[in-house]
């Protein structure tokens, strides 16, 4: 019998936590925190060459600026950091590896003085030949971005190759692809590329660090998705005990992976820990145009996929080669490479698999976590190649997909059996809702219309030992404090957890509070990434709340002298109908109950819960096989209906339908929010986003002036977001992750829609107006494909355009 009753438990549409403060403008983000006049401000001085030895850094003029307190350079802070591979230093030491890399940090009494000081630092370099093209960098070792690669520590499941530019190489070897290819009726071999893209969160990175001069303890306030991961990374880099570092994570203004791990904090620490500075807090606020030069971008990629298909349309073999351009650091970028690798048969069952997924170093800003984590890259190619293959063999693209689909129980590319899912249902609904099979005329005069489809899937990409824990405290007035170190960056985690606690404790959701993470008070959680939180932290929260409930029931049972099973908690009132009892939770829950024997028993009720995925085994380094390589997959599909203006290449989206099997929607309003938001982000990326460089490696799109993202005028008028619920076995309530998934497949769906509309296949993202126009011109000349390799690095952008002719 369920012993709790609540209005806003799991599955309810409920007001979100902290929305009122956000609307009132009073929720304090990191940049809003106030310190006294002792606060110092830092600004980075940046490299003006893409690859070079630092000959000198002259900051004598900077020190003369009124208000400048100190200038530190790389040599003053020699520490290496990294989540999976320790290849990162906050400032360049001896050598710069990308244009814009911090080479010095100016610390001053005001932001303005720091800015003035920054402008007065001059550095001289001896330029080295740079390498920008990841395909070239992967195969040509004449220019090495990290000649000392063998000296970097790394986790076991990442394999860098010293003497090359390969930061990680993930392999799948299953069956015999060569034999299968030789037996295949059809061979399809295609490539797709995509430049780096940016997260585009509205809040730039901001960090304040302070070293306590007497003890050396560090306090870090930062725009971090993962307070504990940040602490771990800093501790390892500095070789400090964990307890010496406290991380406080205020609410962040959007993450999307761009604030995962450690971003700018080490750079700030370089200032705060300097002997001439320490004791005073140092604030590092990254101006928008420096965001992409200081922290993550999404890796660019070139993906080659070869399929072998039998005469019945079954895919019998796949060979994948993925080059991920990870810029100068693979410390985090090594993992999307794995994530794509161990998902590299996509949503399909393919018996023979050969995958090589590489993280390649180049002299550019570095790649890291980005919503989708290797899957937008994989599916950006896979779902296009699948579409091409279907048409090549003369089969309907949906039929082809369904014929090969990874049904529950069939092995994924790592050999792990696929979990239960309702992908068939989702496909049917999407096809139906955008009338995929109906050829409809364009609604805009003179335009052409097309429809496209793509599948999506992803598993949480995390180490096998990514752990979560939570503490539930019931206060003396029946309210609850939940300590769960997930960062609620808008996805609604605290709302979902409050619903879970409400479900387990029968306490109304308004009485449940969830403070933002502080490593000093919260118990450990690995990271807020990977769409893992409602699942992994959800398990911990459920256990903690259940633990608190058991304790509460046991106390009341003894207090009332009844069986615990006869007690219920309903909307915060503890009841025993048998005995006619109904009391609100009060100070007894804190101070103890006066028991029949006259003694006080109880004391504050605290529930605790921990969780770590119990059965994940890392894929074998050679074959990529494992009986359980990931915890589960969330699957889905996207259908897009677009129109194209043949005269300009402008693309407008008429309608999108996007559905995902979430297992259980804990917080439907937030599930809907994730699907809508991620779909728009995916469309924006697919249609207009890309980072471009000139021939010297200078980023031409550092800020919103030239890195364009979707505005209110770019949103499709009709966006159908839905979900299915096939329960996940190991899960708090049957739920799986959904945060990232909607970002994964809008781009390939659009590419497929454009093929439907135009009859020419575009192999390069983004599908911007000029590119679409070019494609149409090419089609007029009888071309069937448009391939634009964005890495015209060795030539100037101007020269690259000459390819048009």
């Amino acid at each position, binding site marked *: 019998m369920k012993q709790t009753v609540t209005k806003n438990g799991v599955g309810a549409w409920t007001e979100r936590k902290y929305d009122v403060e956000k609307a009132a403008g009073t929720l304090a983000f990191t940049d809003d925190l106030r310190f006294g006049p002792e606060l110092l401000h830092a600004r980075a001085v940046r490299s003006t060459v893409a690859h070079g030895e630092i000959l000198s850094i002259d900051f004598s003029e900077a020190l003369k600026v009124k208000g400048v307190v100190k200038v530190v350079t790389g040599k003053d802070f020699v520490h290496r950091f990294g989540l999976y591979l320790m290849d990162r230093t906050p400032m360049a030491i001896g050598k710069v590896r990308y244009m814009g890399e911090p080479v010095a940090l100016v610390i001053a009494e005001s932001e303005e003085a720091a800015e003035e000081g920054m402008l007065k630092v001059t550095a001289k370099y001896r330029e080295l030949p740079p390498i920008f093209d990841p395909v070239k960098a992967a195969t040509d070792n004449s220019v090495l971005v990290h000649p000392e690669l063998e000296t970097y520590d790394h986790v076991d499941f990442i394999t860098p190759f010293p003497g090359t530019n390969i930061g990680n190489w993930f392999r799948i070897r299953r069956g015999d692809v060569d034999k299968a290819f030789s037996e295949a009726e059809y061979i399809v071999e295609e490539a797709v590329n995509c430049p780096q893209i940016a997260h585009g969160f509205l809040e730039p990175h901001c960090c304040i660090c302070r070293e306590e001069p007497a003890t050396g303890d560090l306090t870090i306030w930062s725009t971090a998705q993962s307070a504990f991961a940040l602490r771990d990374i800093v501790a390892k880099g500095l070789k400090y005990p964990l307890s010496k570092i406290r991380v406080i994570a205020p*609410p962040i203004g959007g993450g999307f992976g761009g604030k995962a791990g450690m971003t700018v904090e080490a750079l700030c620490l370089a200032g705060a820990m300097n002997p001439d500075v320490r004791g005073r807090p140092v604030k590092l606020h990254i101006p928008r145009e420096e965001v992409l030069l200081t922290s993550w971008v999404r890796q660019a990629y070139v993906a080659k996929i070869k399929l072998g298909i039998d005469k019945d349309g079954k895919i019998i073999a796949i060979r994948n080669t993925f080059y991920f351009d990870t810029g100068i650091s693979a410390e985090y970028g090594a993992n999307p490479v794995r994530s794509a690798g161990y998902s590299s048969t996509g949503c399909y069952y393919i018996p023979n698999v050969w995958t090589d997924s590489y993280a390649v170093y180049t002299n550019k800003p570095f790649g890291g976590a980005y919503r989708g984590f290797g899957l937008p890259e994989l599916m950006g190619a896979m779902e296009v190649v699948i579409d091409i293959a279907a048409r090549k063999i003369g089969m309907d693209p949906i039929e082809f997909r369904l014929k090969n689909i990874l049904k529950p129980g069939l092995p994924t590319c790592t050999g792990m059996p696929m979990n239960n899912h309702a992908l068939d249902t989702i496909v049917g609904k999407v096809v139906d809702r955008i009338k995929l099979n109906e050829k409809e005329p364009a609604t805009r005069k003179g335009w052409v219309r097309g429809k496209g489809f793509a599948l999506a899937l992803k598993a949480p990409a995390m180490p096998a030992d990514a752990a979560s824990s939570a503490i539930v405290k019931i206060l003396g007035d029946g309210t609850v404090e939940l300590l769960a170190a997930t960062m609620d960056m808008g996805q609604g985690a605290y709302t979902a957890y409050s619903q879970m606690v409400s479900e387990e404790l029968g306490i109304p959701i308004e009485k449940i509070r969830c403070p933002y993470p502080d490593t000093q008070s919260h118990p450990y959680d690995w990271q807020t990434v990977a769409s893992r939180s409602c699942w992994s932290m959800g398990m911990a929260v459920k256990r903690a709340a259940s633990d608190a409930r058991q304790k509460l029931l046991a106390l009341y049972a003894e207090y009332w002298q009844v069986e615990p099973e006869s007690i219920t908690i309903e909307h915060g009132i503890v009841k025993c109908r048998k005995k006619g009892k109904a009391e609100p939770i009060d100070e007894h829950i804190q101070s103890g109950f006066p028991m029949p024997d006259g003694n006080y028993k109880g004391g504050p009720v605290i529930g605790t819960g921990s969780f770590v995925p119990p059965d994940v085994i890392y894929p074998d380094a050679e074959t990529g096989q494992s009986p359980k390589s990931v915890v589960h997959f969330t699957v889905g599909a996207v259908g897009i209906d677009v129109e194209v203006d043949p005269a300009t290449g402008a693309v407008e989206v008429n309608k999108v339908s996007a559905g995902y099997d979430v297992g259980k929607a804990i917080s439907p309003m937030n599930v809907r929010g994730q699907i809508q938001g991620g779909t728009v982000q995916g469309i924006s990326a697919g249609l207009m986003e890309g980072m471009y460089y000139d021939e010297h490696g200078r980023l031409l799109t550092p800020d919103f002036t030239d890195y364009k993202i979707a505005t209110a005028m770019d949103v499709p008028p009709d966006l159908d977001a839905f979900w299915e619920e096939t329960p996940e076995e190991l899960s708090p309530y049957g739920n799986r992750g959904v945060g990232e998934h909607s970002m994964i497949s809008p781009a390939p769906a659009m590419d497929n829609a454009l093929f439907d509309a135009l009859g020419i296949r575009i192999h390069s993202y983004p599908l911007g107006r000029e590119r679409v126009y070019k494609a149409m011109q090419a089609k007029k000349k009888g071309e069937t494909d448009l391939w634009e390799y964005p890495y015209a690095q060795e030539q100037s952008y101007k020269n690259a355009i000459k390819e048009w002719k």
Partner: protein
Amino acid sequence: MKRDVHFILNGRPVTFSVEPRTTLLRALREYGVTSVKRGCEEGECGTCTVVIDDLAQKSCMILALEAEGKSVLTVEGLVGPKGELHPIQQAFVDEGAIQCGFCTPGMIMSAYAFLRKTPDPTEEDIRVALAGNLCRCTGYIPIFRAVQKAAAVMRELGHIPGRAR
């Protein structure tokens, strides 16, 4: 060389002492009005939007000294004396139009100035009015709903363009 600037901030007269280069954005934040955000400081994102004499403007493009004699409104000024949210703020909460919350104050101020001029907008009107406010989280769709809902509530309550609140 610092100079004084006098203006009305959320209904109260204030005097700031600022350098000429200090933008209104930075001056407001320095004073503690932190709802006005630093998203880009170059006029591209809208997180710094305030309403000055009924016109929604990006405060990063305004020097603090230019506020002399004007009336500046931010979301803190929309909250009532008993903590009641303005209908626009409430509509954002009700419709799930908020995720991370960073674009929210600016978005609400744009919507506020817009609805006072256009009390019965079409969806197209709303898209144009909010085109200067970026949001990366929500995909804008619930924001459009929230503005429509707020418009309806304001019409019902008799919020007349030009009148306070």
